[in-house]
């Protein structure tokens, strides 16, 4: 085997028999062997768990006691009748929207700024990415101290300019804004770089032509950049949706108890799942929530795709 690998001269016809067979076998089988680690691992930690989650959700299942018998859809009907479930869904959607929409707008503006002829390009690009290396746990601890109700930096600044304090840990909407701020701190720059890459792929002669036609910066931006950027925007929205709807770290560490606030002000779906599974030890119900969340994510993903398609095609029509 080792000698055959260092053959430099063309091998003689006769010695080809065995090697030829080995070679053919190698060509046919090796590719499957090379890609198999991914598929095996995905089957074990992706596909199987998804199916098994379904199985657990149809049983009474205790964290310690294990399976306690068939439950049918009881877990689902129980969860769907809980006020907490709907509150969690509302909070998740609210935090997601409050973070995603301003983040996308800010990221697009930053990307447009980075897409100009800057001095020290690399410096500015790196500077927007700094927050990305801070772990969400640290981000939450840092921002949590700024959003304190009595002594937080934000409320102190607000009172300095004559505004009343905001109850960041009591009022649901205020807590959602605080949590969304943490998400945006970490991800806006990252998404700006992705959008910047998309902007740089726009053919420059489009801008040239538009400028000759007298279009100013703003018109160029809305009539060329944004429509050309559509696939990138869709990509950013889809990834933000998958990540955003599963949000856990920030609401978990927003207070010491980690269960989403006294009145579930900022209890998200994943926090609820955790609460059911690891506080109430009810894996059947936790699994039911996992599946419901999966359905929500898929639905929102499809909705996104549908709307972005529609918006895109109507824009194409207008042009």
């Amino acid at each position: 085997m080792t000698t055959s690998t260092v053959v430099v001269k063309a091998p003689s016809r006769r010695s080809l028999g065995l090697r030829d067979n080995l070679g053919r076998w190698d060509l046919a089988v090796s590719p499957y062997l090379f890609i198999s680690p991914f598929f095996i691992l995905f089957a074990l930690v992706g596909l199987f768990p998804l199916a098994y989650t379904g199985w657990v959700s149809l049983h009474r299942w205790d964290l310690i006691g294990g399976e306690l018998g068939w439950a049918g859809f009881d877990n689902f009907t129980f969860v769907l009748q809980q006020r907490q479930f709907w509150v969690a869904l509302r909070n998740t959607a609210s935090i997601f929207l409050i973070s995603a929409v301003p983040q996308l707008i800010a990221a697009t503006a930053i990307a447009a700024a980075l897409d100009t002829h800057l001095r020290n390009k690399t410096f500015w690009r790196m500077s927007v990415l700094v927050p990305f290396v801070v772990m969400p746990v640290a981000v939450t601890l840092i921002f949590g101290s700024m959003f304190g109700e009595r002594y937080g930096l934000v409320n102190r600044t607000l009172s300095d300019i004559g505004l009343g304090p905001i109850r960041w840990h009591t009022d649901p909407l205020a807590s959602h804004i605080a949590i969304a701020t943490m998400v945006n701190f970490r991800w806006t720059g990252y998404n700006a770089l992705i959008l910047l890459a998309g902007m740089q792929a726009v053919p420059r002669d489009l801008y040239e032509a538009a400028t000759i036609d007298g279009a100013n910066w703003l018109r160029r931006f809305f009539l060329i950049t944004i429509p050309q950027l559509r696939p990138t925007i869709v990509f950013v929205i889809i990834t933000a949706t998958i990540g955003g709807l599963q949000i856990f770290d920030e609401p978990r560490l927003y207070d010491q108890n980690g269960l989403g606030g006294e009145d579930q002000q900022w209890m998200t779906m994943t926090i609820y799942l955790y609460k059911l599974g690891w506080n109430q030890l009810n894996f059947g119900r936790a699994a039911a929530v996992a599946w419901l969340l999966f359905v929500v994510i898929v639905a929102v993903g499809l909705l996104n795709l549908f709307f972005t398609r529609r918006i895109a095609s109507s824009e194409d029509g207008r042009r």
Partner: protein
Amino acid sequence: MSVLASIERRRALARIEQRPGAIVYGLLTFVLIASVFPFYWSFLIGSGDAGTLSDTGMSWIPGGNFLHNVRAVIENDSVNFWHALANSVIVSSVISASVVFFSTLAGFAFAKARFRGRRGLLVFVIGTMCVPTQLSVVPLFIAVSKFGWTGSLGAVIVPGLVTAFGVFWMTQYIAQALPDELVEAARIDGASMLQTFWRIALPVSRPAAAMLGLFTFIMSWTNFFWPFIALNQSNPTLPVALATLQANYFVDYSIVLAGALLATVPLLTLFIFAGRQLVEGIMRGALKG
């Protein structure tokens, strides 16, 4: 007329090519300050004492207690700082090395080998990126408990050994960076697929592999949800350990924020040396995504 048009064109080009004005630099400076301010804030509070945050006459000049607070974090028994740091290094290194190796291996096969079902399988890989893996915690936890892995690093490492993103990323790169002729030549010289991979594909993929490794390292270093469930306080990763800082009844923010800053230092150092590559990697990945 044509002279006029060309003047017009040059003027238009000049307008696009010109250096940006104060608004652009102003916006970017604002973003820069917003990016860096939380670090300063952490240092400000982290260098004070338990009363600094609630001090109404709070000064913007850091105090002298930072090292003292850092020591309080390190010596806190429930935090296990050094243990957590070592665990984070192990988990992130093993996961990055494994993701890079297996993704490059699969990427090489997808990009350069001809086999039945190649296209379909690649589409499948991309499709799996949309499956939210976090939702699998319940069965993963059941499986991990059955194997007796709860609390051990294996429970955190194994699910991350290879990712769909990595496979897709390396496939894209190898497809354009490795010429078919080179693969063909190696085969004619009698090299097996594995040898071709090891001696030709792996060296060629080094730039993309480095970016993938960097990205994967950051993602696993900052990961919280699954390690938090699978591990416990006596054997944590850094984010899990950091979270316990706040779990006390009385929260001393000077110590919490010193800890938050301390936990950020390793990746921040990495960023200073490899930030440029990370920026490049994210931008290149975006174009194909």
